[in-house]
């Protein structure tokens, strides 16, 4: 199958997944306690006004009709209005998405190369002290929940021992004018995702280093550095790309806790706020956004997997 066909097919599957997610999200929001009208008007609203607003918001229409109208708007890019602030959801989540993407991009850009290098380095020092220490450290980190890591970092670098970085973000300003607030959340995410990538890279690298073609390259007098860069690494990237993608996709969900912890104005915090305020249109939009992110990241991983594997790349040609 050519790369174009693969991408096309995966995009179709991705669209199907988003459709299923939209149905689940919509159905789930039907069963949330309280409704949007009450969220807007507050506890003291009279039944008459509630009823009037409900019909204005089409809350009394049959669910299927409401789903179709919501999904139709979604496809055309209209995410509706927030029931809390009465402003369009797009405006509300645009800045948050940028903030979160920044957080994730930084975490991914740091974690991936560091983890790949660390995994490779560890594999090259198989069964030596450095390798054992790396294995132990990654195992400990992998078994700690990210909020524990985050609290630990806060304690060491912000509130307790050292006071290098702020503990929370000043929500009145954009994050870019206060880059120091990014350090601890990014560090937390990096520590959360790199252990898995490191361990996977080490295992894959060990396997490749023990393969016949690596032995043969050495018997051909190829220098060790070239054995690593031209033979071992290209053959390890493909399998590891899948794990990297899984970890990046996990980031999209993992930032909810981290953003909450550092009071960071991203989509994670947005989800928490939307749930607290029964702001269902905002919640729906955010969940759909995260789902779309999952689909795209996994697609990218498949593309990397195909590009690094000639057997797949040349199939069909």
């Amino acid at each position: 199958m050519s790369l174009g066909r693969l991408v096309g097919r995966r995009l179709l599957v991705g669209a199907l997944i988003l459709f299923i997610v939209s149905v689940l999200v919509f159905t789930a929001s039907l069963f949330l306690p309280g409704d949007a009208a009450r969220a807007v008007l507050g506890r003291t609203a009279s039944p008459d006004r509630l009823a009037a607003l409900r019909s204005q918001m089409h809350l009394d229409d049959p669910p299927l009709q409401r789903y179709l109208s919501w999904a139709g708007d979604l496809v055309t890019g209209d995410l509706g209005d927030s029931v809390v602030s009465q402003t369009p959801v797009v405006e509300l989540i645009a800045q948050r998405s940028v903030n979160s993407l920044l957080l994730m991009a930084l975490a991914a850009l740091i974690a991936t190369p560091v983890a790949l290098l660390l995994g490779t380095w560890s594999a090259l020092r198989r069964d030596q002290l450095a390798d054992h220490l790396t294995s132990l450290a990654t195992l400990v980190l992998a078994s700690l929940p990210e909020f524990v890591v985050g609290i630990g970092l806060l304690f060491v670098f912000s509130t307790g021992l050292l006071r290098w970085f702020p503990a929370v973000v000043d929500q009145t300003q954009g994050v870019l004018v206060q880059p120091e607030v990014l350090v601890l959340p990014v560090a937390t995410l990096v520590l959360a995702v790199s252990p898995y990538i490191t361990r996977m890279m080490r295992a894959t690298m060990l396997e490749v280093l023990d393969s016949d073609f690596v032995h043969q390259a050495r018997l051909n007098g190829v220098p060790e550095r070239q054995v690593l860069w031209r033979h071992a690494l290209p053959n390890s990237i493909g399998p590891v790309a899948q794990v990297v993608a899984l970890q990046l996709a996990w980031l999209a969900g993992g930032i909810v806790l981290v953003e909450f912890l550092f009071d960071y104005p991203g989509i994670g915090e947005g989800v928490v706020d939307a749930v607290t305020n029964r702001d269902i249109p905002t919640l729906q939009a955010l969940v759909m956004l995260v789902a779309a992110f999952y689909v795209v990241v996994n697609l990218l991983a498949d593309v990397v997997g195909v590009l690094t594997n000639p057997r797949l790349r040349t199939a069909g040609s």
Partner: protein
Amino acid sequence: MSEARSEQRGLRVRGLRVSTSAGVPVVDGVDLSVPGGTVLGLVGESGSGKTTVGTALLGGTRRGLEIVGGSVLLEGTDLVTLSETELRGWRGSRVTYVPQDPTTALDPAMRVGNQVREVLDCHDYGSGPHDRARRVSEAFEEVGLPTDDAFTRRYPHQLSGGQQQRVCIAVAFATWPALVVLDEPTTGLDVTTQALVLDTVRRLTRQHGCAALYISHDLAVVSAISDEVAVLYAGSVVEQAATDELVRRPRHPYTSRLVAAVPDLSGDRELKGIPGGAPSPSTRPSGCRFAPRCELVVPECTTELPELRLVADGHHARCIRSADVTPAHVRERRRIDEIDSAPLLSIHGLTARYGRTPVLHGLSLDVPRGTCVALLGESGSGKTTLARTIAGLHTDAEGELHFGGNRLPFGAHQRDRETRASIAYIFQNPYSSLNPRRTVGDSIGRPLRVLRGVRGAELERRVGDMLERVYLSAAYAQRYPDQLSGGERQRVAVARALISEPTLLVCDEITSALDVSVQANLVGLIEKFRQDLGLTLLFVTHDIALVRNVAQQVAVLQEGAIVEDASTEQLFHHPSHDYTKELLKTTPRLVS
């Protein structure tokens, strides 16, 4: 080329010793010399240390082994004394290595042209990029591969097995080396491809005037390519001589027995195994290592390791009784019994497929009662699928099977208990066909328990009985498969197959994982059961020489169809199909 120059280009190995890190010798004082432009065959069975010798010639060892003594002299330099950095300059340049399995030895993510180019680049071949690009083309041409970009830009998986091995050979000869070590390079190839590869290696060795060491367990292949042969047994060379001389007049008992164990295509020799097994490095006896298995043994043999001494012109042997060694027994041409019995198994219009891919195309075959019918074919010919369909393991099929006059359903579970007990199957790989968590006795007894309901002391007695009949003792019942050698495991598999007293035994490449001496023993065992019990055998194999020594009738399979079905006598004297003729022509013979 002058005599002096080829001598200088040659390889001289003196007293090479390789040990485990615990100090157990694996290779114990090996001397070899290979003049430039010639091929020395190094023959040995598994555990003899032949691959260890091969890698030691490149100054390396497997993990856990080290070179502890001796010298490897090439172009006036002792490779054993070189540092790792110096060795890197020699490897791939002056001394090169052709691996056993090209499918795993080529980098799957690198274009084949670049794999040749890389070696040239690493060793600064020629005067520049242009020179190297030309040499890449030349190297491909030398091994008979296309030289156009469309081919050199392919990846390994886009090439056939034979083409892949030729790429490996191109890599090995690209830098005009002084020594090429070839480690069983044709083991995974079909005989026709093997013949091409052997031809290429021989021609290039002459052309380049380089020395070549050809390592193999297969004496017939080695004799087809080598000028001289060295026989390795338990870590030391026991005999070395010109190929013809060695095969016709062996002067070491092991060589003589080894020759007798190689299936002979002409059918002139009796196929005979060697009793016992080769010792592992830690259990090698003092004195002559072969003494415990030797028919000529005298008390002096066990006290001191004999020297490798000159016994005839250019002929060395490590045996104090070398004068008494007789050549492999030549016998009357094997009489093949006439086939006159009715078929036990009939196959009519059998088509089998995997999903949408048909593997067998409407083939028909009769297997007469009490005979051994060989199913001969290369990998991918569909021979294993046919065997599995008969055994009821492959059910995606159409057509008719008749067994003992009754219609045979495809799935084993649709067959009644009696039929299942009557058809037994032995798998190719004895290392994976026995459950490692069950004792041998448990594995052998299982068919009796399940199919015949035998239990308790009676079961134990019959398992012990069966073990003795395959020349293992009843005490083996308590052992686990990992405590057995490959040959012993396969005999356990035979015992398991025969304990339910089947009438048809399907053997799927049962000797392909075994050494020739063990293969000969196993084949002898199976033949004895056929004669004693009137067993009918379906013997699946790719080895036409073996067919001649076991079967009365042969069905030749090619691309899922039977292209020739004849008595063994008929097939070998008057082959009718081109493919059969090709096989007979290209299969290496021991004495050419």
